[in-house]
């Protein structure tokens, strides 16, 4: 591949007590691609995400982002470096309104900006824009905790996007989201990708994965067991055996 490396891990390992959540994972994602990470439940996808985004510290191995080593850096540093992520067990700010939730994700540029107003009209417009694009702008004044589960997932997505990350890691964005909206999210992802953003998406919805991604990595028991373009991966007997189970 001639495109540059986005996130790359070498020998990434994390175990909890007895469980090897991630086991010497050496993976490389390319810039400007839509990458999918699939694998059975408990195969270490989320843990992999957590290690990459600094939520938890890997036992061994390295994580690099665009050539810079970011292993074990604090989450906010990694976020500042340009990686945004959503959580599988949807995390939002329950007692803020939908709009504030998105505003809170806007990253101030420089210390000076810190004391500037958080409610600049420009910022509000951007926030509304994202809400519109994920289709919950009609809820902007509602307290986030009153949203339905799927609405909360969409809200989280909007927040991640508000931070304008270069690289976007989504953990099961389609889980619990209405199919019609899934299509819309897919379109959204494609557009943002076209704008040059890189995606790394964990998803169990095969239809989505196959239609969306350029590159698929398959995890099993914490190890990447196969990777490549969707079709080849889908055909891979190991994958059929470990994951799709047909």
């Amino acid at each position, binding site marked *: 591949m001639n495109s540059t490396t986005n996130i790359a891990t070498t020998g990434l390992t994390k175990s*909890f007590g007895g469980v090897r959540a991630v086991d010497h994972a050496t993976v490389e994602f390319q810039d400007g691609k839509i990458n999918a990470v699939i694998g059975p439940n408990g195969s270490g996808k989320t843990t992999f995400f957590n290690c990459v985004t600094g939520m938890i510290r890997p036992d061994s191995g390295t994580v690099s982002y665009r050539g810079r080593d970011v292993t074990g850096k604090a989450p906010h540093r990694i976020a500042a470096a340009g990686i945004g992520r959503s959580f599988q067990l949807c995390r939002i700010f329950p007692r803020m309104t939908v709009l504030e939730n998105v505003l809170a994700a806007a990253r101030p540029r420089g210390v000076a900006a810190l004391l500037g107003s958080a409610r600049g009209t420009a910022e509000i417009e951007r926030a509304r824009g994202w809400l519109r694009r994920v289709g919950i702008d009609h809820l902007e004044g509602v307290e986030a905790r009153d949203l339905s589960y799927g*609405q909360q997932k969409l809200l989280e997505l909007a927040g991640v996007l508000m931070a304008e990350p270069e690289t976007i890691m989504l953990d099961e964005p389609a*889980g*619990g989201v209405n*199919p019609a*909206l899934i299509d819309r999210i897919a379109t959204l992802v494609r557009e943002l990708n076209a704008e040059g953003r890189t995606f790394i998406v964990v998803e169990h919805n095969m239809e989505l994965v196959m239609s969306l991604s350029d590159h698929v990595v398959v995890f099993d028991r914490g190890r990447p067991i196969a990777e490549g373009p969707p079709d080849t991966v889908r055909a891979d007997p190991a994958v059929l055996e470990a994951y799709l189970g047909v």
Partner: protein
Amino acid sequence: MSDQPLLELRDIEAGYGRAALVLRGLSVSVPAGTVVCLVGPNGAGKSTVLKVASGLLAPRSGAVRVAGQDVTGLSPQRMLAAGVAHVLQGHSVFPEMTVAENVTLGAYTVADKARVAERIAFVQDLFPVVRERWRSLAGLLSGGQQKQVEFARSLMVSPKVLLLDEPSMGLDPKATAVVFEQVVAMREAGLAILLVEQNARRALETADLGCVLDLGRVHISGPAPKLLADPQLAELYLGGRPTVTSENRLS
């Protein structure tokens, strides 16, 4: 199928706190041995329907009947006694208890020890992770694993009416398959199943009847295959292209 539905919701109006109504005169009924699938956009009120049916949320008006008897506004415990079981959406394991405790608690109301043991063995066979991680804290399992434990927990009792809120969410294809197999099996066993799924195609393929819910009302309802075939419906609620299955080609 008996003429009298096992679970029946009549003209339900319900909402949270002082906020506006979520369900606005909604009616659904689930005969024994049938799977009724609720689909609809996020925030349509699907989960709310189930909460009303299981007593978590008392309706402002309307009636809930189980096997003909009126159980409107009863507490969840009473509902369970009446034979209604509910698997919540999202994550509802007891995070700081072991998988073992979680699963056994599923049979909290079951006195008969032998039966409990037998069910445990059964769910452990269904979901390997339940056996493998028997002693670890449920909260530490992966998202999908937790969902599997939850489903396993719900299998510990044998209710008359089962309310499933997106049981396949976050499950890998294998586990999803197992879940739907169980749904089918339970239908065969004569349970009335009210299934909420965003994985709508898969669900409708399993279900007998489908209801499309929006703005707290049932918009369209009918035999699942018909709904699957309806192109406009597919575009609005099911996403992607309508699937053409053997059944609805005939019709």
